């Protein structure tokens, strides 16, 4: 396990190098020019050229990459081309909202989806199973903004129960923080509930056909324990995987929800950075995500070891 951890951490380094290089190339290959964006409408080609020089964008690519890498190695992700702020502080500002939203969504999702999936598998073909099927079809095909608008309309505008937008930091009080997250959390959870519940159902239904379930039943233990302790745990590996994928997606980009609910999260930052071609910011975000994803997946992989002792790496 220790050596596994070490190996994983060491393996992260080449990933970062390659990702950094690829993203660097991508940013420069993508059409669009931050200088043109900065100059704005009234500028001329000459203005654009001047800004490019100021930003060092006229230098040869290898030089630009070398400079940037050297900076990163010093632990400095650089400064945004647009904002007079460091990439690190920009990312830092967005972490809390993103983590809050992702965390709440995850809790909502797992609390609903897993039991739902288990029950649907238990009564395979029953009404709950069918309802889940219908729900997941809707969950997959309704665009997020529709769910968001409908929830806002129902809960915030008609019901006047919750705010329609905004994010309040946790240090402003737990309730104000939560109030602002409930609707976006619900909006996001719908598609994940659909996905995770269906995967749970499939995996648990599969486990329920196994002989050890018969053994468990022969012990006279309650059906709940049969489902949870025996079926669910055996089915847990794909479920945890899908949850892990969900976490990665939640942290990486829930732009639509963030926009609809005006949550200043990483998803918006990423899209903004790409759409304004803020090269250092794009590169910084990608590096950051690489590390985060490697960590999430490390956690998921470690959880496999706990969930299924037969798994070895």
């Amino acid at each position, binding site marked *: 396990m220790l050596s596994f951890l070490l190996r994983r951490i060491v393996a992260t380094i080449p990933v970062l190098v390659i990702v950094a290089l690829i993203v660097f190339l991508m940013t420069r290959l993508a059409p*669009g*020019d931050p200088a043109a964006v*900065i100059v704005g409408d009234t500028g001329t080609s000459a203005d654009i050229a001047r800004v490019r020089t100021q930003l060092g964008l006229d230098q040869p690519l290898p030089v630009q990459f070398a400079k940037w890498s050297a900076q990163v190695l010093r632990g400095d992700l650089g400064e945004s081309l647009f*904002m007079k702020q460091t990439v690190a502080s920009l990312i830092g500002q967005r972490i809390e909202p993103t983590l809050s939203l992702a965390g709440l969504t995850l809790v909502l999702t797992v609390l609903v989806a897993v039991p739902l999936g288990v029950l649907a598998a238990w009564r395979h073909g029953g009404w709950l199973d069918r309802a889940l099927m219908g729900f997941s079809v809707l969950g997959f095909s309704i665009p997020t903004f529709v769910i968001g608008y409908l929830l806002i309309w129902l809960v915030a505008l008609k019901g*006047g129960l919750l705010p329609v937008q905004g994010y309040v930091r946790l240090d402003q009080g737990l309730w104000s923080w939560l109030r602002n997250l409930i609707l976006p959390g619900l909006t996001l959870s719908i598609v994940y509930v659909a996905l995770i519940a269906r995967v749970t159902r499939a995996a648990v239904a599969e486990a329920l056909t196994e002989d050890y379930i018969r053994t468990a039943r022969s012990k006279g233990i309650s059906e709940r324990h049969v489902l949870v302790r025996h079926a669910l745990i055996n089915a847990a590996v794909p479920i945890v995987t899908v949850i892990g994928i969900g976490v990665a997606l939640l942290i990486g980009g829930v732009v639509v929800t963030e926009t609809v609910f005006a949550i200043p999260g990483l998803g918006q930052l990423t899209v903004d950075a790409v759409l304004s071609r803020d090269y250092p910011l794009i590169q910084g975000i990608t590096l950051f995500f690489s590390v985060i994803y490697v960590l999430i997946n490390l956690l998921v992989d470690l959880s496999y070891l706990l969930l299924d002792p037969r798994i070895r790496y």
Partner: protein
Amino acid sequence: QEGAKVLRMVPQTDLKILDPIWTTAFVTRDHGYMIYDTLFGIDAEGKVQPQMVDKYSASPNAKTWTFTLRKGLAFHDGKPVTSADVIASLTRWGKRDSLGQKMFAALDTIEVSGDNGWRMVFKEPFGMVLEALAKPSGSPAFIMPKRVADTPADKQIDDYTGSGPYIFKKDEFRSGDKVVYLKNTHYVPRSEAPSGLAGGKRVYVDRVEWIILKDAQTQVNAIKTGEVDLLSWMPSDHYAALRIDPKLEVVEATTAGSYFLHLNHHIPPFDNPKIARAAIMAINQEALLRAQMVYRDLYKPCTSIYPCGSLLASDKTSYFTGKPQFEEAKKLLKEAGYDGKPVVLMQPSDFNLLNKLPPVMAQLLKQAGFNVDMQSMDWPTLLMRRARKDPADQGGWNLFITGWGASDNMNPMYFAPLTGNGEKGWFGWATDPKLEQLKSEFVATTDPAVRKRLAEAIQIDAYDNGLFAPLGEQKPLSVLRRGVVSGIVKAPVNVFWNIKKN
């Protein structure tokens, strides 16, 4: 903060760049008006009025100008505003702003003179000094402390001390989320009533929060529930719903803006003015505006290149009527020998404010006999691509549409695309010596009548050479909570002083 009055409002877009000479983005300009003051301001009539300046005078030949600052002006840090600050600020601004560059090119000396005053001496008559110092948009000539203004023009400032009516709260600034301003309690407003960008800038709230809401529906929802008090740019799709909401009020807070079709004169086919005119003849202002703005109340066809109803607006538009003239266009094309090669029309699909115009324009051009290749891209790509001079099929372009505020096209010297100096000019790179000549005559005079005549000549010349053409005006509206917010000042740009909140 018990009892403090907080005005929550939604700006047009997210604020990213805080240095007003770094970009001409509207939102940065609006931010500038919050925290900085200007020497002159344009009033509701379009006339230039002193703002920070107390007295000024010009020699009759318009070569020597002297100015004195008002008493009692102070920066947010408490230090008084001096003419040294002004000279430093103007110098930095003069390096970037197009009109500022022109002014400094003509300038001989600028120096401190008298008690808190300064003098500018020009090499040749320069009639546009006040207009330059009062330039409302692009990069206005904001006054900063000398220490800040001494920052090289190619570096962004990171000290946001100004002398304007509001103080920028740096520690609460989060791009993409919130911008916070506090009332500048030491600000000394002029005694006149507010009028446009001139007059007394009085502040009746303690704190202004710009809430960044990107989603139009969310903006509407937020103002409906009172989570924000003011939408400075009404999302036009929601006009019908907002107008009938008894709790809300839709007001005209800024002068109209215009959409323009820009043509590339550097490469075929629009290097041929006849073909350029044919394209302009395809314009159907009504159809285009209707598609983009949906509601009749929100747009107005206008054939002048200056804002309709402004000082310089003119109905002498040569052949241009704003209505389609497909037959004439086809005839022109035949005459000019258009070879049927596709013309590339760029569409910025992510730019909500104008992304519905290009599809309509494409269909109109087809009707007029053009072979159109409409290409979609995101806005930064368009911005990059419009700077390329290559042939259209090698990464270049022929046409694109963009929008201008009244503050841009109210004066030919403010209006960036109005260039005839070929490759040195604005995108489209028209070569039109006559236009350049007319513009230099315009700069040299201070006589309103002469200016009016020259402006008209410029307009006719622009149409005849097919430089660009207006697609009509759109009314930018603001939405506020009825009975809660009042006192909006109508100005060429969005300004947020004088607003009261109950």
